[in-house]
């Protein structure tokens, strides 16, 4: 099969043409540039924050050993507050970027987003249920899970919705994407109504907790949380990356991909489950943070073309850079007050989405 579609599936073509070579060079340059940018952004985000830390003293602070009282606090801020937050930002950016690019390839639509099939809403419903009804519905679970209860519930909600949507859209090993989309719309509507109902019965305190959860924030970043979320996200990204070549083939059309020997149904199923896992785990950690999964892959595709083997790592890196930058703004611009991250990503992402729609008007026959 590699002789039939060499450039699409794997390995370099026997005779690579000049523009193709140019494109390969540009792709490599973009990925290298993004990696470098990610390293720089990470360092910048680790050094800057509401709490003033002299960047040159950071190595000294990180060096294990005796410290004065003030330095011990600085070290605690650096290690227990800022570092987990920076890492969570990277995790969120990578996860949403990877899930977004895989979903866009799967649906063959650059406007697809992990929220499309209702997974994010499922997570939001889980969290809302715990915040509003947790003390009446599952008090024992609340005692065990403590402050992680909304996160746990969000994760369960995301998985439950993913399973439900899958049940609706799949039968005998086949998965109908249009059905999946429509089921996602229905789920989004139902979840919207359910959350509305919860808002209606919520007490004042619960309402405010719910509102802040919905705005999304990385402020909950803690090592223990990262320890749980990282394996899930890394595993999901690995699963998505494994199918990059197959997703490329599926861009030609499902029938065509099947004729090329790609196990289309299995890949659709695995990409869907991996995306749901990834998004569910992340939304559970941070609340609703929109647009990263939409914007990052699309930018990479505009620059590098639609090859999923480039878009996925590119979106991963760019998503992380975007999230880091947005969170840096969120926690420094109004310090000591903190802005909700969800507001910032929506403020940046919304106009971008509009420009995207405007540019695609031609393709939609306008």
């Amino acid at each position, binding site marked *: 099969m590699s002789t039939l579609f060499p450039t699409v599936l794997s390995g370099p073509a026997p005779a690579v043409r000049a523009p193709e070579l140019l494109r390969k060079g540009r792709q490599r340059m973009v990925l290298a540039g993004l990696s470098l940018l990610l390293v720089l952004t990470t360092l910048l985000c680790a050094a800057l924050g509401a709490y003033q830390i002299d960047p040159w003293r950071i190595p000294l602070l990180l060096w294990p050993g005796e410290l004065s009282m003030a330095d011990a606090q600085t070290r605690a801020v650096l*290690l227990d507050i800022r570092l987990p937050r920076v890492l969570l930002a990277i995790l969120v950016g990578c996860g949403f970027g990877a899930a977004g690019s895989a979903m866009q390839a799967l649906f063959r639509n650059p406007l697809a987003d992990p929220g499309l099939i209702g997974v994010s809403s499922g997570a939001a419903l889980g969290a809302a249920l715990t915040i509003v009804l947790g003390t009446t519905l599952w008090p024992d679970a609340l005692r065990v899970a403590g*402050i992680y209860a909304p996160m746990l519930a969000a994760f369960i909600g995301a998985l439950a919705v993913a399973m439900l949507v899958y049940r609706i859209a799949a039968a005998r090993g086949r998965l109908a994407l249009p059905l999946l989309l429509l089921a996602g719309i229905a789920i989004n509507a139902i979840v919207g109504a359910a959350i509305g109902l919860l808002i209606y019965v919520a007490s004042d305190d619960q309402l405010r*907790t719910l509102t802040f959860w919905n705005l999304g924030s990385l402020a909950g970043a*803690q*090592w223990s949380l990262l320890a749980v979320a990282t394996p899930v996200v890394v595993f999901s990204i690995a699963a998505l990356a494994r199918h990059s070549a197959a997703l490329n083939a599926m861009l030609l059309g499902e029938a065509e991909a099947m004729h090329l020997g790609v196990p289309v149904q299995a890949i659709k199923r695995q990409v869907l489950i991996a995306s749901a896992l990834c998004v569910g785990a992340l939304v559970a950690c941070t609340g609703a943070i929109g647009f990263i999964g939409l914007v990052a892959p699309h930018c990479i595709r505009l620059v590098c073309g639609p090859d999923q083997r480039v878009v996925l790592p590119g979106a991963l890196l760019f998503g992380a850079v975007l999230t880091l930058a947005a969170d840096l703004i969120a*926690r420094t611009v109004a310090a*000591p007050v*903190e802005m909700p991250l969800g507001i910032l990503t929506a403020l940046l992402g919304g106009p971008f989405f509009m420009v995207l729609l405007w540019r695609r008007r031609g393709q939609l026959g306008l």
Partner: protein
Amino acid sequence: MKPLIDVQRRLLLGGSAAGLLLGALPGLAFAKADAANPPRRVVVAGGALTEVVYALDAGAVLIGADTTSTYPAAAQALPKMGYQRALSAEGVLSLHPDLLLASADAGPPATLQQIAAAGVRVIRLGERHDVNTVREKITGVAAALELAARGKTLLQRFDSDWEAALAAVQKQRPAKAPRVLFILSNSGTQAMVAGQETAADAMIRYAGAINATSADGKGFKGYKPLTAESAVNCAPDILMIASESLAAIGGMERLLASPGLSLTPAARNRRVVAGMDSLLLLGFGPRLPQALTQLSAQLYG
């Protein structure tokens, strides 16, 4: 103490869940070390606690407060740490406090944990809406600031003021307790009414009146949206509203003309209590006796 931090750091770096439990330890250790000398840099999240600090004449130690700390005027000049329920760990720590006085509403919980883990003493005060909670706030803040003697004086003054306020209520209240409906409106669009277990409900009961939403043996907890028909059903004799809410609604005439409310005895007789801001009326701080006296005067005057 120092080795503790190192142990904690390694555990947390390992990402172990047990690290979270240990995270509370350095905070406790710091708290004990600090107990010898009074805190010099204090931040407050919660308007009532801020009032207590100023009432103790200890405003000088404050270096930051949240957005609900609107009284006295000096509190408004302090650096603002944002809304008490949405504190930022790094933001609070950037002020380098050695003590955080937090109301029961303050949070999120993970943030308070992080602040404590960074060596700042975190003291939470005030769970309920009653006089004893106010007394706990006064003694608690005084103890935290190591001003126990001043706390005692303030508490004595508070107690005698409270007795006087209750006595005034007893003298003023008529034989038949009026039905009072408390209306909350932050935006001016959707008004809410107070049910049981709210600060407004407690104030109405201290004033010897009846909360109109729970008058007939039914009722609900917390705040619910005001519907025209249920407003008529409640048949309040008096409407009670904080001055901010009245301004948000657009003044007395607008309030009295709103659907449903316009048909109540309160609107017919133009009986509205609206002279207090919400921190005074509902804050349950050291000005509680003053708030009750004013409320009673306006209800029965």
